[in-house]
Each structure stands twice: as structure tokens, then as C-alpha cells.
């Protein structure tokens, strides 16, 4: 039988040296932002019961989940998402806590990706969840944190996109058609597949709603979008959604600085537990969004606790990739090497410890001779060698 003992599974990789340092630096930068805003970290297990993710199967199609079983034969999954386990905690151990809760996490999500597409099975995400407020202020708080995160890295430019998941839902529910058709319409709008969208809407009929839905994927860009949208279709609920989003847009645009702000009313994600405003963040040089999130006021209720929430996740691997492209600096900084003559090993160890106490990075030489040690230091750019011999030991 072929043994797979020298490679990692597809979609995963080992990170070495620079990759770790740069990734860690990227994480730290983001976590400083979260902490400075009063968010506290929590860690959830990498494996969870399948049932945790199965309240609504449309969020996590089973073929995307990596599964295993426990010793009772129960189905487990490697967490495909960070928000759901946090919703579980909020609805159980944090149920009696005073609201709002400001939480952040930094852990991998696992998704079965189609093979040979260059996508990752394991992706490190960090993000925040603000639990217990349906206020406008909560939205501004989370969006301003998102902007700070996007601004803090080395990409040439960043942009933030906002939308509202209710806009599409309100509109499509005015259609007299099957749920399957509604899902198809959602898919076509998400893919901005104008030809297919037009075809399916033509079979449903020609009216104000189908006309508006046909235009929906084109409703993205700057402030002009709001005017276009209001001309397209008008009723009290859609108008108020648009008015709220426009107000948010104007407020957020004051926070953007050099970044670009856009709005997309055709943002209709598949794993859609979002119930209101949705955000996506883009960085120049990465082919998909690096940040995504939104308001999810009904999700925690799946676990029996009815509380509003909003948050976002950042793809740390994507940020790391961009930082590496921009040559984020890493140096292996060893200040000195301690070389102990034969018989003076303990003195050597102690000497190194002493130097480290003063804040230096010190290696011990593992070579037998001083010549080999010199060669090693030369190759590795270490300028100082401390020899411990009879003289030094005294």
C-alpha cells in the first residue's frame, strides 16, 4: 500500500520560519486593535458535534464539512466557521452575562474544497463578535474596527463594501414563485450572472419586481447606487432599508480616509445567516475578499437565546500572503554564540543563560571546534562568539 508519510493533505501546508513570523506579526497587529477596543479572546475546540452546524443545512452543505466520529459513533466535524461555535457559547455559558459581549477569536476553519484548485482546506481566521446590541452604534463600532484592520497592513490600497441582506430578501419574497426558483435567483444574483438571471425572471413574468431583481446585481458602486435603487422599486419597507443603509454609508465614508467605500445591493451570500448590514473588505493584490461579516440577529436563537449580534472575520492567511509580497521584514536575530571547550559544558550553559537574562538572543555552539563555530557564525551572520574555557571559567 502506498504510504503518505512525507506529504501533507491537499489544501494544507507547513509554515516555516519567515512565514510563521510574518503571520504572527499580522495576527498581533490585528489583535492589538481588537484588545484596544475592549474585546476578549476565546478559544473553541477544533472539533465539534455535527449537530452544532446542522440547524440549517443550507449554511453548511455536508459535502463541505470534514467529518470524523467519536468513540460512541457520533458524528463530529472540524469547525467550518467561527461564528457558530461562539453563538453556542453565548447561548450556554454566557447566557447570564451582562450584555453587550465583546469577543474575539483567532483560530482555523476547515472546509473541504474541490481538489486541484489551489484553495485551502485550513484557513486561519481572526475576528470579532459584538453580542447583544441591535443599535446603529454597534454597526459603526464593528465597521470602524474592520476599517482599522484593513488599514493596518501593507497592501497598496483597501476598500470596504457594505450591503444589506434584507434588501434582496424583501424583494424576492414579493415574487409568486417556488423556493427553488428563489434560491436560483439568489445564486444568479450572487454570481452577477445577468444572462441566466434574465432568463429565469422572464419565465416568472414581467412586472416591477422582476425588473428590479434584474437590475439588482448591477446596483454596486458609489453613492449613486442609492438613487438608482430608489428609482427601481419603492415601498415602505424597502425604502426604510435603503434610507438606513444610505445613512450608514455617509457615516462610514467619514471613517475611510484613503480607503475606498462602495455599496453592493447584490451581495447575497450562500451561507447567509445575516439579517441586516453585511460588509466585505478587499486588499489590492488578493483575488477574493479578505474580510467579511455582518449582522446576524437570528443565529444565536438557533441555540435557544434570542439576542442580536454583529461581527466579522479576517482571513489571516490572505493578509499574510499580502504582507509577504510586500516584503514584510524578518531577521533571524541571534546576538551571540557561546562556544564551550570540552569539559566546560556546564559553564557554557550558565554563561548563555546569564547573557539571555540581559535580553540577548544566545545560541550554544554544538560544534567540537572553534573553527567550525566561526564558520557557522559567518554563514548565519552572527557577529559575536563567546568562548568558555579554563580562563573564562575562573
Amino acid at each position, binding site marked *: 500500500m502506498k504510504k503518505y508519510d512525507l506529504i501533507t493533505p491537499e489544501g494544507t501546508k507547513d509554515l516555516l520560519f519567515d512565514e510563521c513570523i510574518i503571520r504572527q506579526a499580522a495576527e498581533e497587529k490585528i489583535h492589538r486593535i481588537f484588545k484596544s477596543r475592549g474585546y476578549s479572546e476565546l478559544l473553541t475546540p477544533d472539533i465539534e458535534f455535527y449537530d452544532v452546524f446542522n440547524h440549517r443545512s443550507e449554511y453548511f452543505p455536508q459535502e463541505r464539512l470534514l467529518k470524523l466520529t467519536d468513540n460512541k459513533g457520533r458524528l463530529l466535524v472540524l469547525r467550518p466557521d467561527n461564528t457558530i461555535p461562539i453563538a453556542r457559547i453565548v447561548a450556554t455559558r454566557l447566557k447570564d452575562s451582562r450584555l453587550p459581549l465583546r469577543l474575539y477569536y483567532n483560530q482555523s476553519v476547515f472546509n473541504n474544497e474541490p481538489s486541484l484548485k489551489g484553495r485551502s482546506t485550513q484557513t486561519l481566521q481572526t475576528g470579532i463578535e459584538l453580542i447583544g446590541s441591535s443599535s446603529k452604534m454597534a454597526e459603526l463600532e464593528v465597521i470602524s474596527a474592520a476599517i482599522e484592520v484593513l488599514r493596518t497592513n501593507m497592501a497598496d490600497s483597501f476598500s470596504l463594501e457594505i450591503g444589506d441582506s434584507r434588501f434582496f430578501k424583501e424583494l424576492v419574497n414579493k415574487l409568486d414563485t417556488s423556493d427553488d426558483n428563489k434560491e436560483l435567483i439568489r445564486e444568479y444574483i450572487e454570481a452577477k450572472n*445577468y444572462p441566466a438571471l434574465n432568463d429565469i425572471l422572464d419565465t416568472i413574468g414581467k412586472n416591477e419586481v422582476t425588473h428590479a431583481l434584474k437590475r439588482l446585481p448591477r446596483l*454596486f*458602486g458609489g453613492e449613486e447606487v442609492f438613487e438608482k435603487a430608489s428609482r427601481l422599486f419603492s415601498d415602505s419597507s424597502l425604502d426604510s432599508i435603503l434610507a438606513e443603509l444610505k445613512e450608514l454609508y455617509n457615516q462610514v465614508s467619514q471613517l475611510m480616509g484613503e480607503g475606498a467605500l*462602495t455599496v*453592493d445591493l447584490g451581495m447575497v451570500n450562500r451561507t447567509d445567516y445575516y439579517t441586516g448590514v453585511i460588509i466585505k473588505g*478587499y486588499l489590492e493584490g488578493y*483575488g477574493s475578499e479578505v474580510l467579511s461579516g455582518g449582522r446576524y440577529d437570528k443565529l444565536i436563537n438557533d441555540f435557544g437565546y434570542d439576542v442580536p449580534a454583529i461581527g466579522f472575520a479576517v482571513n489571516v492567511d490572505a493578509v499574510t500572503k499580502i504582507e509577504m509580497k510586500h516584503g514584510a521584514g524578518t531577521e533571524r536575530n541571534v546576538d551571540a554564540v557561546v562556544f564551550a571547550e570540552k569539559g566546560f559544558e556546564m559553564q557554557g550553559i550558565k554563561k548563555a543563560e546569564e547573557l539571555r537574562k540581559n535580553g540577548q538572543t544566545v545560541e550554544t555552539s554544538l560544534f567540537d571546534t572553534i573553527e567550525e563555530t566561526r564558520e557557522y557564525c559567518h554563514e548565519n551572520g552572527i557577529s559575536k562568539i563567546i568562548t568558555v574555557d579554563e580562563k573564562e571559567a575562573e
Partner: protein
Amino acid sequence: MSKPLRIALTKGRLEKDTVGLLEKAGFDCSAVRDKGRKLILPIQNANMEVVLAKANDVITYVEHGVCDMGVVGKDTIIEMSGKFFELVDLGFGRCKFALAVKKGTDFYAGYGVKTIATKYPNVARTFFESKGMDVDIVKIEGSVELAPLLELSNGIVDIVETGTTLKENGLEVIEDIVPISARLIVNTVSLKLRQKEIEDLIKTIEENL
């Protein structure tokens, strides 16, 4: 000046049709027409460059954002799927996916599980899944028409343009699955970050379809 807008074209017939379309829209494609062995080719009178690739690769490049846009057949899009925006039906490269069997045989007769030969296993699987029908799917790389003639399969799922090849081999289409034509696809981030450029280009293209 910003980075050129990079468009991936499917080599072969779609490439010729797309170049024709771009030229009609006023873009100087002389470098593409006179390409030699080069694979990345500039459009002289615009901030654009053309990349020539196989159909599946067009999707891969656009999905990863190393190309901003691409022109690829709907057949490849259905078979590969993926995350990108599919903005325009370019109208050329028209054909269809169809189910074909040996002339005169009744494909649906009997309760035995049928075998289907195809170059497009995902298309075939989705088609029969939607019918709630179990089939064995065999992937064939070359002339799929051979499989039913050699009695490897009961039918084939393949692209049908004129039907001449089928007819010459004693096969006939019994069901159309989905029509196909060339599509303009765009990377999800490119469309947002370079909206104006891309929308202007699409408008020019649509005016010349």
C-alpha cells in the same frame, strides 16, 4: 498608469471570435493575431493585455484574480463551477449539452442502472441527479461517440453543435440538457476595485455584439 486590465481568452475558436469582437470594438489586437509563441500579449491602444489559455485554466486564472476577466464557454463554467461573476453572454460559440444514444434504442427502458460516457462528468451527474436517476458515469477523454458503439455505455452526454458526428456514427440526440455559448467572466474583487474600467469595457463590448 495603473496595471493593465488582464483578459484571459480561451485558445482556439473562442479566441478568434473574441479577437474579432475586440477589433470591432476598436481595440488593436495585432499583437494577438501575430503572437508567435508568446502567451501574454498587449493591446496597443488600451491599458489591457490578453492572456491565452485553455478553457479550464481561464476559469482558474480569473478565480484567483491573476487575470481580471476571461472569455470561456458555458460548458466549461458548468463543468468546473467556481466563484466569479458571469456578466455577459457573448452569443458566439453556440452549441448545447445533450444526451445521445444509439439510434433506435430506448434509453429509459428496463430497470438496470445505465452507463453514461462523457468528458463532462459533473454535467452528466447533475443532469441525472435532477431526474433522480442513478447512473454509472465513465469519463472518456477522446471521442465519446465510441463508447456506446463499443457497448461500454448506454449513452453519452456531450457537446453537440451540428450533430453531424453523431449522425455519421449512428447516434441521435434524445434530450437537450442545456444551451451553451461564450461568456465574459470577471474576478469578484477586480469588478469592485476596477469597476469603472471594467464597466466601460463591457459597455463597449455589448455595443458591438
